[in-house]
């Protein structure tokens, strides 16, 4: 099987969220960047498992500058065969999706994987856009995937449960928790990753209709009000009269 996994670089979950340049840019100072967990733990690992089962190749693709090479090498260390980086600023999901779709369209992949969302912009946009550009089915929020070589059976997370679907032919899939188990790269993988091919290609599309004008931080909580455990009537009263949520 020929598999493509789209990977993103995101700030670590515990990163301090702050902005610079008049609140127009994310402040990267002191921030550790990681592979987006949905891409790494679920999409990439399930792709590797399918390769182990059916044979084939796993390619990872990223849109961004050379600062992203560290997380791309990590994906190679986990087990991807080769990598592609489309060299432009990932200004919006549409820029990312159209560039990946035009690369993928020339290479006949059986499955294009994405994470269900990135943990920074939480958009959940790229997978569906790639599918639409390529005219392929899009199976979102997959928590289980079986593939017999020609047909896939996928369990998708929906509100309050799951839906099981089957899909024939190539498709785009977004990966949710449950699709696979995280793999930690070993020393051999890390050494081999240094020699694996990382192709840098020029971007085709760099214009975007959507931009971020500024960022702000949500209103801070007033601080917690501690309630006497023997006076739950008081808590109910506060929820009704002060918080007004009942």
């Amino acid at each position, binding site marked *: 099987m020929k598999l493509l996994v789209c990977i993103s670089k995101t700030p670590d979950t515990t990163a301090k969220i702050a902005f610079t340049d008049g609140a127009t840019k994310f402040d990267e100072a002191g921030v550790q960047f990681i592979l987006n967990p949905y891409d790494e733990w679920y999409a990439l690992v399930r792709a590797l498992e399918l390769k182990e089962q059916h044979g084939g190749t796993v390619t990872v693709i990223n849109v961004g500058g050379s600062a992203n090479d560290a997380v791309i090498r990590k994906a190679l260390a986990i087990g991807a065969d080769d990598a592609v980086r489309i060299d432009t600023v990932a200004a919006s999901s549409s820029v990312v999706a159209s560039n990946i779709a035009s690369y993928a369209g020339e290479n006949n992949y059986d499955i294009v994987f994405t994470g269900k969302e990135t943990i920074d912009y939480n958009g959940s946009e790229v997978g*569906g*856009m790639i599918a639409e550009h390529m005219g392929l089915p899009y199976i979102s929020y997959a928590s289980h995937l079986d593939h017999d070589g020609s047909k896939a059976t996928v369990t998708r997370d929906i509100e309050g449960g799951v839906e099981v679907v089957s899909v024939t032919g190539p498709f785009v899939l977004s990966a949710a928790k449950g699709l696979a188990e995280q793999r930690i790269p070993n020393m051999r993988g890390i050494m081999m990753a240094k020699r694996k091919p990382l192709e840098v290609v020029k971007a085709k599309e760099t214009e975007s209709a959507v931009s971020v004008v500024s960022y702000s931080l949500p209103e801070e909580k007033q601080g917690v009000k501690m309630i006497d455990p023997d006076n739950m009537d008081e808590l109910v009263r506060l929820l009704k009269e002060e918080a007004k949520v009942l």
Partner: protein
Amino acid sequence: MGVLVVAESPKGQLKKAAFEAVHYAYLSAKNLGGEVIALVIGESSDAGQLGTYGANKVVRVDYNGGFDSGVMCSIITQVAEHVGAHSVILNHSSTGKSVASRVAVRLDAGLVSQVNSVPTKDGDAILVSKPVFSGKAIAHCKIEGPKRVLTLMGNALPPAEVGSTCPVELVSVDVPTSNVEVIEQKTVEGVVPLPEAELVVSAGRGMKDPGNWSIIEELANTIGATTACSRPVADTGWRPHHEHVGQTGVAIRPNLYIAAGISGAIQHLAGVNSSKCIVVINKDPEAPFFKAADYGVCADLFDVVPKLTEAFRKAQGA
């Protein structure tokens, strides 16, 4: 030209999310201009009631096949062109999210997902905001161009009644063939799904054993809340996977989130910190969750939860 809003109607039933989306479309049309046209896909006997929340007209398309984002996209974009929509609005739900990105590409429109504010005009562009970094910041976005697609975050803006029932027009569209077949759906019946719930009662490892959950269920039933849990509890199989709220689980935004026996790891907070009011019950005064809470009770949950249930009952009886 107007605003087209997709009103989700699973199994022929309009959901609260549909009323939210229609009312949001009504508020958006006030700023952006044009009529509000609500699209109902599939059976619906009471689609006209969407007029109450601000729709000028309902367009209904008969489609009873399973969910395929490609088919949905085709139906929505055909209707969008039929009614001359300048904006398309969907819920930020598993359906809406899966379809919106396709619709944006096909209409060559700018997409902002999970919006939590009513769009305003800025010259020819529009401005709208959305939470980013798992609710730890808000991005104020600009969309250029004549068309845009927005997905509305659940529970962000309450639906309000502003009119009366409106006419429903049945429109026929070309339905493309699909490579996707829905085999089955397994969903919990009779409870509000977590992403739509206004009241949520959640519990974690502090429960010690899955057999102890009856006190949580009793509390939830008393106030009509949906139950949820933390990641370790779902991972060990104490509770079903779809109840897991947090970074890798479901992100929720209820009016009230009651958490018992959950310490409040940053990954858990990422999924719940947009809740309007958070009550934390924990016997450890150092639990980090207290810092993110509105109200805290520092005591043994096995003692406090039944007392809280009793207090709610007493208040309801009063």
